[in-house]
C-alpha cells in the first residue's frame, strides 16, 4: 500500500535532530533569557536522559532550523496549532474537542493568549504579576468585566469558579449545567423540605430550571439595578 517516503506524525520535524537550548539562545536570546523563570522550566532536567527538554520540547528538534539559518518551515510554531501543547496536556485536547470550548481547535485562538510559556507563571495573571488572571478573560469579554453597582463576589474567585475555559459538556463552558453551580457557595441551610440559599427557601425553584433563568438571578456577573443580581 505504501511507498517508503517520509511522512511524520505531528508535531515533528522530518529529519531533524535535537541540538539543545543553547543553540536556540544564540539567535533567540530575548526569548530564552527569561525561560528559567517559566513554569515549564520547572520540569527541565539536565543530563543525558533529558534529551529533548527545553526549547525543542515544544518547537521540535532544531537541527534543520539551525542548518537553514533560521528559515521558516524548519521549526514548529506552536501558535499555529495546539498540537504541541497537547503532547503533554492530553486532557486539554479532550476538553477543547467538547461542544462548548474556546476557539482553539478552529484556530481562532491560541493557547498563548491565556498562557505564557516562556517566562513567569504559565497561567497569566497569577502569582505576583501586576495583571490579574481575570484580565485574560475580560480583555475580550468586556461586558462581564464590570465594575457593577451590585457585585457578584464569586468574581473575586475568578471566572473559573463557574466556567472551564478549556471546554465543557455544558453550554457557556459552565462547570455544571444547573443550580449546583451556584449552590457551591450559596447553600446556607435546610429545614425539612426546604432548600435555603441566601437565607430564603428556594426548594421550589430548581423545579423550573437554573438559578439564572428568566425572572431570577439573570445578571450573574453583576447588576446595576438589583442587589439580588437581576436585570
Amino acid at each position, binding site marked *: 500500500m505504501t511507498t517508503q*517516503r*517520509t511522512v*511524520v*506524525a*505531528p*508535531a515533528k520535524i*522530518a529529519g531533524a535532530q535535537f541540538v539543545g537550548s543553547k543553540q536556540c539562545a544564540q539567535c533567540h536570546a530575548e526569548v530564552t533569557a527569561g525561560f528559567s*523563570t517559566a513554569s515549564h*522550566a520547572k520540569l*527541565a*532536567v539536565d543530563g543525558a*536522559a533529558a534529551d529533548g527538554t527545553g526549547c525543542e520540547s515544544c518547537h521540535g528538534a532544531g537541527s534543520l532550523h539551525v542548518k*537553514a539559518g533560521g528559515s*521558516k518551515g524548519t521549526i514548529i510554531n506552536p501558535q*499555529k496549532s495546539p498540537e504541541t501543547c497537547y503532547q*503533554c*496536556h*492530553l*486532557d486539554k485536547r*479532550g476538553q477543547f*474537542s467538547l461542544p462548548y470550548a474556546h476557539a482553539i*481547535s*478552529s484556530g*481562532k485562538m491560541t493557547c498563548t493568549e491565556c498562557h505564557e510559556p516562556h517566562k513567569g507563571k504559565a497561567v497569566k495573571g497569577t*502569582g505576583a*504579576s*501586576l495583571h490579574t488572571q481575570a484580565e485574560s478573560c475580560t480583555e475580550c469579554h468586556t*461586558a462581564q468585566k464590570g*465594575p457593577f*453597582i451590585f457585585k457578584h463576589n464569586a468574581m*473575586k*474567585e475568578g471566572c473559573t469558579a463557574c466556567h472551564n475555559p478549556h471546554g465543557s*459538556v455544558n453550554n*457557556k463552558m459552565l*462547570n*455544571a*449545567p*444547573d443550580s*449546583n453551580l451556584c*449552590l*457551591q457557595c*450559596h447553600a*446556607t*441551610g*435546610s429545614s425539612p*423540605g*426546604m432548600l435555603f440559599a441566601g*437565607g430564603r*427557601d428556594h*426548594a421550589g425553584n430548581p*423545579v423550573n*430550571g*437554573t438559578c*439564572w*433563568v*428568566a425572572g431570577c438571578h*439573570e445578571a450573574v456577573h453583576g447588576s*446595576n*439595578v438589583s442587589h439580588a443580581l437581576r*436585570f
Partner: protein
Amino acid sequence: MKSFTIALRKTGLVAGLAFLSVPVGAAEADALPTFDTNYIAVSAGGADIKGSKAAYQARTAKARTGAAGIEDMRFDYDLKDNTTLAITGRALAGQEDYLLNFKLAKEEVGSVEVGYKTFRTFYDGAGNFFPIGNVWMPLFSRQLYVDRGQLYVQGTIALPNAPVFTFKYTHSTRDGRKDSTILGDTNLTGIPIYAGPGAVNPISATRKLLPTYVDLDEKNDAWEIGVRHKVGNTSLVASLGGNIIENRNVREMQQNIGELAVFPAPVFTVPTVNNVRAGSPRRTTMTQRHEEDGYHASASFETVIDSKLTLFGGLQYHKADVDIETSRQLTATIASATGIGQYAGGFVNTGASARAPYHLVAKGDLEFEVFTGNLGARFTPSPDLAIEAAVRTEQWEDSGKNLGNYSSQGVTLATGAVTSYASQGLHGVKNTEKPWTPTLDIRYTGIKNVALYASWEYRTAKQNEHVRYEGLNGQTKANELDLIGKNIKEKHSNATVGISWNLNPALTLRGELFTKDHENDFVGYSDVLGRDYALNFDIAGAKLTAVVKPTPTINLTSRYLVQQSKSTVFHSGLTTTGVINGSVDGSDSTRHSFSEGITWSVSKAVYVQANGTIVYDQMQTMYPWISGNAKRNFRNADNNYVTGDATVGFALDKSTDAKIQATYYRADNFDESYAAVGMPLGASAKESTISVSVRHKLSDKTVLSGKLGYFDSENTTRGGYADFSGPLACVMLTHAF
C-alpha cells in the same frame, strides 16, 4: 481546506495537525513540499447536512452554506535597504473569515504592522428540550452568529543600542446575535395543571426552557505606547495606554408563549387587582449599556545584581470612568373583562418579597481606580537551587450610582380597569479593596535526572463594600435607603509541589500535588448588621504524567488528574424562618480525568496516532443532606464524558500522502426521569466522524489536496431535535511562486 479539517476537529478532534493545511516541518527531501512564503492556497468545500443545520454550525464552527476562497496566503518581498514586506491573508466567503495583514520591517530599525481580521462564531439558539411533553420550541428561524473583528496597527522602533519603542492600537468589535442560557418559562410541558377549587398541583408545570438571545454590539478601542531599555544590568519597561469601551447589549426574552389565560378565570384564582397571572405571555427586552473611558500607566524593572541575585518590580495605575444605562421593557398580554390587551409591566402582588414585573429605565455612572505594585527577588545560591520570592499589592476603589425609574400597570381582571404605578430608586456603591499577595517559588535540580519544585501564594485582602439599594416590593416602593454594608476578608492560599523524573531516555515520570484553601468572611453592618457569611473553599488534587518510549518509534503519554473540591458555608443572623444558622457543606465535588496518547511511527512512511480521554466529574452540593420536597426536586450535577481520536497517515506513492482520521465523543448525563420533578439539563450526546484525505504533489510548487468525510451527531439533551449528520467534501490547491 484547513477550515474543513477544523470542522472535524471541533466535532471531536481529529488528531494531528490539519492535514490539508499548509503544514509545518516536512523539511526532509523526500517529504511532500511545504510552503511557508510566497504561496497561495485556495479552497472550496461544503457539507450535505441532514437534521439540524443550526446545531451543525454551532458544533463545527462551519457555515451550512459551505465556504470558498483563499484559505491562506503569504507573500514576502525584499525591498531596498534590508527592508522586507510580508503580506498575509485569508478570505473565505460563506464562512465570513477574513484576514489581511501587512508587515513592513527594516533590520536594525523596526517594523510596522497593519491589518484587519474577522471571523464568525455560530450559535443554535435552541433553548432546552423537555421530555414529558416532548417540548421543543426553537423560536428563531434567523441564524445566530457573532462576528468578532479587529483592526490593528502596531509597530516597533528598535535602533541598535537605543531604547526600543512600541506602539499598538486596536479596534475590536463583537457584533451579532448569540444564544443565552437565561431561558424563558412555559407551562406547556405536558405536566397536568389541575384546576378547580382546592386543587393543588403536586408539582409545578412550569419549566424554563424557552430560547432567548442577546444582540451584541461591543466596541473596544485600545492603544498603548511603550518603551524598554537596558541600562547596565537593569532592564526597564514602561507603558502608557487607554481604552474606550462601548457596549450596548440587548437581551430578548419571551415567557409563557401561547399560554394566554382565559377570562373569566376560574373563580378560585380571581383576585381583586391582578396582573400577570401565570399563563400570561410576556416579552422582555433588557438593554445594558456600558461606556468606559480609561487609561493606564505602568513601569517595571529587572536588575541583575550578580550571578546569584536578580531583583524585579513594578507599578501600575489604572483609572476609568463608566457611563451605565439599564432598561427592562416588559410587556404582558392579559385577558380581562374588556378583552385581550397588552400592558406595560403588568403587576403581580404576591407578597412582600416578590419582584414586581415592572418597566425599568436606569442611568448612572461609575468610576474605578487601581494602584498595583510588585517587588521580588530571584536567588540562585547554587546551580541546582533557584528561589523566587515576591509580593504583590493592590488598592482598588470603585464608586458610582444608578437612578432607576420604575413603572407598571396593574389590571383588574373582573373590570379591565388599569392602575398605573411609578416610582424611582437610587442605587449606589462605594467599594475599596486592598489585597496583598506574597509568593514563593523554589526549584531544585541537585538530584540526577530529577527536578523538584514548589510554589505558594497567599492572597489576603480587606474589602469594604457599601451599597445603597432602593428596590420595589409589590405595588409600592420599599426598602428605601436600604444601606447594605459588608466588611470582607479573604485568605486565599494556593500551593503546589511537584517532581519531574527522567529515569532514562525511555521513561519520564511527573507528579504534582496542588491545594487551594480559600477562606472568605463577609461581616455585615448597617442594615445587614449581624448577617455574617463565611465561605471556606478547599481544593486538593494531583496530576500524574508518564511518558514512555519503549522503542524509538513509539511514544506513549499517560496523564491522570484527580481533584476534590469542598466548600463549607456558614450563615448567621438572617431573620427568615428556618434553620439557617451554622455551617453546612456547600459542595463536595470530584473529578477524575485519565488521558492516553500514542504516537507510533510504524515505518518511515506510516504513522499512527491515537488519543483518548475519559472523565468522571460530579458536582455535589445540597442533594445529600436536604430532605422532603427539596430533595425530590434536586439532583447532583454530572459532567462525565469520553473523547477519542485516531489517525493513520501514510505515503500512498511517491507524490501522494494519505490520512484516515476518526473521532468520537460521548456524554451520558441526561436523566429523563428527573423531568417529572425538575429540569433535566445534563449533557448527553454521541458524536463520531471519519474522514479520508489525500495530498498530491502536482509539481514542486503545486500541491492538490482533497478530503471526504462523514459526521454523525446525536444529542439526547435536546431530544434528538439537534441531531445532524452528513458527508463533507473539500478540495484545496496550494501553489508557490
